[in-house]
């Protein structure tokens, strides 16, 4: 009899959990995770030196090969900086001539990554800043390289970020060269793909994809990645292209949550 009661209670609580609305269940989840966060902090502190060591060895090996390419690139970027300074000055002069108001730049909250998603089904990270620090739901999160994702769960001192490589994520993207808009979604291989590009517009590997600003989560102009493979369909209205994300999702340590994005 006692066993039947236990089974009934557990089954009912499972049904109750499954029928919770998304907002209630997400706030419940992140609140419980915050209670466990001291233990999480200890584990993170224990593993961080090990991770840094492994990462640094990898970086040193990679740097040796990359060095000549980077030197060459530094020279061309130096030339590009000079040219852009000129363009910037010209732009400033034209703006003042047209009395054009400068767009407000976004400020951000710097946060440390303290955990990853436990399941293979989802791609998310936990960061050590929450509502008490000014983090709000749906805020865009970026790294030094590019767009990382958006905030989906917020606790007072902890938040969860849904990465752009998650299968449920969708970011409004634009191909910088052709100005064609599409939607960037996560793929099976931990990368992302830009979908719904018009068939007739040529897209080639190496083209840069940035945020379009549509959808009002991500400000326009943030780097998402570069096109690696273009999928040309024989029929249909649209084509898609696979991207190499700019953000290094396997080496994320610090991110910035954009305020007022």
């Amino acid at each position: 009899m006692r066993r039947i009661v236990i089974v009934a209670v557990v089954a009912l609580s499972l049904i109750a959990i499954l029928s919770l609305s998304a907002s209630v269940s997400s706030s419940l989840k992140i609140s419980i995770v915050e209670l466990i966060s001291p233990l999480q902090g200890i584990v993170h502190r224990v593993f961080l030196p090990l991770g840094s060591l492994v990462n640094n060895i990898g970086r040193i090996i990679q740097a040796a090969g990359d060095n000549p390419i980077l030197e060459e690139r530094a020279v061309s970027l130096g030339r590009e900086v000079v040219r852009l300074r000129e363009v910037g000055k010209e732009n400033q002069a034209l703006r003042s001539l047209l009395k054009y108001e400068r767009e407000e730049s976004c400020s951000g909250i710097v946060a440390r990554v303290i955990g990853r998603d436990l399941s293979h089904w989802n791609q998310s990270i936990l960061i050590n800043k929450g509502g008490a620090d000014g983090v709000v739901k749906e805020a865009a999160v970026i790294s030094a390289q590019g767009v990382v994702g958006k905030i989906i769960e917020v606790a007072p001192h902890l938040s969860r970020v849904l990465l752009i490589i998650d299968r449920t994520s969708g970011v409004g993207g634009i191909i910088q060269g052709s100005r064609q808009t599409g939607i960037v979604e996560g793929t099976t291989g931990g990368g992302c793909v830009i979908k719904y590009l018009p068939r007739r517009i040529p897209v080639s590997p190496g083209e840069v994809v940035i945020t379009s600003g549509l959808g009002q989560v991500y400000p326009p102009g943030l780097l998402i990645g570069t096109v690696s493979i273009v999928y040309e369909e024989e029929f249909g209205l649209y084509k898609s292209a696979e991207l190499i994300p700019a953000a290094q999702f396997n080496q994320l340590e610090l991110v910035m949550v954009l305020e007022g994005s």
Partner: protein
Amino acid sequence: MSITVRRPVHHFTPIRGRKWRLRFILFLLLLASVIIQGAAGSVVFFSFRPDLVLIIVVYWALKNGPSGGWFIGMAGGFMIDLFSSGMLGLHTLALATVGLLVAFFSNPLYQTHLSTRVVMVGISSVSYSIFYYVLLLIFAPPPSWSYLWKAVLIPSAWQTILVAPLWLWLIDLALGKDVKDKGR
């Protein structure tokens, strides 16, 4: 005159008593979840996420029968639900089913043998991914069939099987290998 007796370092005393063992396993579930989600963040292999929670569930289900397997499966699934961005309750349901089935189907096997356990871990990992996919079909927008194979089922299975011998050995060390909590 006093004599000091020292035990060899490898000679651990297993945890005795059903309640204490259960408490230890529940703590281990929490620790496994925190280790995987915390350590994976700092170690270079981002996608290397062996399912330590599943291994614990299989271990407990083999020793304690359907009710034990079901209960620990639920607790472990709830842990995974907490630390992932998916819908709350789906992992709980999927892992509880796995715990129950492992206990049912492993009855005639040599459950304490390492190879049996590792094979059970592999089968459970595959079943768990398929159960979860079925639940997604019912409750949430499901991913494609190729996503299940390429992104979840295969990586999860090989990573979990790779870690299973070591993780099972560590649990054995703490709880004692040949002690069965409940005879059937």
